[in-house]
């Protein structure tokens, strides 16, 4: 499993795109929003939690179709399926690798970009925590979606349609936690619910992903 994780990370770094793409997209969206909304810091700081969460969600979505598609095309997926590595484990490792290449950089970059949106100072800690807890769920749910569409050409659109509704709870609780933090309220409830989604998706979706992959490999 560690071998697969290291390989995926190495591929993401070498092939480019993997690491930079999501982060660059996140940066562009967040930088463009103030131009579109206008220079009202009051308004910006009110919508900042939502913007940051929507942007990181879309950035995570951007690289989802690469999770399995490349391995499917060059045959590695069939070879992995016949290897001693359980497909459930492979699915979890794939999600983890996706998180390390997109979710983690996004989380670390978000506070700097929150500054651009004049996010309330009290909210920075909660922005970091909510992204740290929430983005793994985005990767795991996305991995499941990627497995569903793996055999399809141009499956990207279908993938987005399948995955975006499943992202909604994470988005709601994530943005809510940051907003409550900004308003000086207690965000624990939202954070707990989001942690529940993450834990639940990591507990269940590897099995669903593996089952779907087995069908798609037939």
């Amino acid at each position, binding site marked *: 499993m*560690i*071998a*697969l994780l290291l*390989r995926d990370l*190495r*591929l993401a770094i*070498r*092939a480019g795109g993997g690491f930079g793409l999501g982060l660059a997209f996140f940066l562009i969206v967040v930088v463009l929003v103030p131009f579109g909304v206008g220079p009202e810091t009051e308004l910006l700081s009110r919508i900042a939690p939502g913007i940051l969460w929507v942007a990181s969600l879309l950035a995570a979505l951007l690289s989802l179709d690469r999770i399995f598609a490349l*391995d499917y*095309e*060059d*045959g*590695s997926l*069939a*070879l*992995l*399926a*016949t*290897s*001693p*590595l359980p497909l459930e484990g492979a699915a979890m490792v794939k999600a983890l690798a996706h998180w390390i290449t997109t979710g983690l950089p996004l989380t670390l970059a978000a506070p700097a970009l929150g500054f651009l949106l004049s996010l309330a100072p009290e909210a920075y800690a909660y922005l970091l925590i909510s992204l740290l807890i929430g983005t793994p769920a985005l990767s795991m749910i996305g991995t499941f979606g990627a497995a569903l569409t793996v055999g399809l050409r141009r499956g990207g659109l279908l993938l987005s349609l399948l995955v975006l509704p499943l992202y909604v709870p994470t988005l709601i609780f994530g943005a809510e936690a940051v907003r409550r933090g900004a308003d000086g309220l207690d965000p624990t409830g939202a954070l707990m619910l989001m942690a529940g989604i993450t834990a639940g998706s990591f507990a269940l979706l590897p099995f669903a992903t593996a089952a779907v992959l087995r*069908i798609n*490999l*037939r």
Partner: protein
Amino acid sequence: MLEVISLTCTRGGAAVLENVSFKVAAGQALILRGPNGIGKTTLLRTLAGLQPSQSGVVDYPEDEGAYASHADGIKTALTVTENLRFWADVHGAPLPDDILETFDLSDLRDRLGGTLSAGQKRRLGLARLGVIGRKVLFLDEPTVSLDRFSVKLFADWLQNTHLAAGGVAVIATHIDLGLDAPELDLTPFKAADDAGGGSDEAFL
């Protein structure tokens, strides 16, 4: 080592081969013959467990099967050594020192997978079989895009290393590998058109 009893395999919900039965003893190879579309690939994928069979028994030691097709699973952004080491690690096997020499890859060890020619990629894909230490190999057209020298190289490895160590290989190929192995013509096993009564597997 490998025993197949009245296996019926399907593709896209329709049976393609019916009642296939054969036995391969340890240290033996079996060559599958038959025209295009007869179901050689389907049979090999079914044997390897990549797709379910409609009926029948496939018996070989658990976790000993390996499948290789024209898709070698080579990562273009990894070097030859890294590609092999990955598969060795996944299978928890050490990387044999002489594997690169065996498949004539020594000069290419630090080249990226993406810069290899089709034949070199094929050799790398076959070298994977020497790395993973599996006993029962299911090979689908292993010699595509190999030159005559490389075919000999591969046949020698198969005979002197894999089979000599008690391994088994089922090979679908159209050329003569020069192996001393029985051949199985799949034409008599071709399923009748309405066989299986229209499974709904394609929709499952």
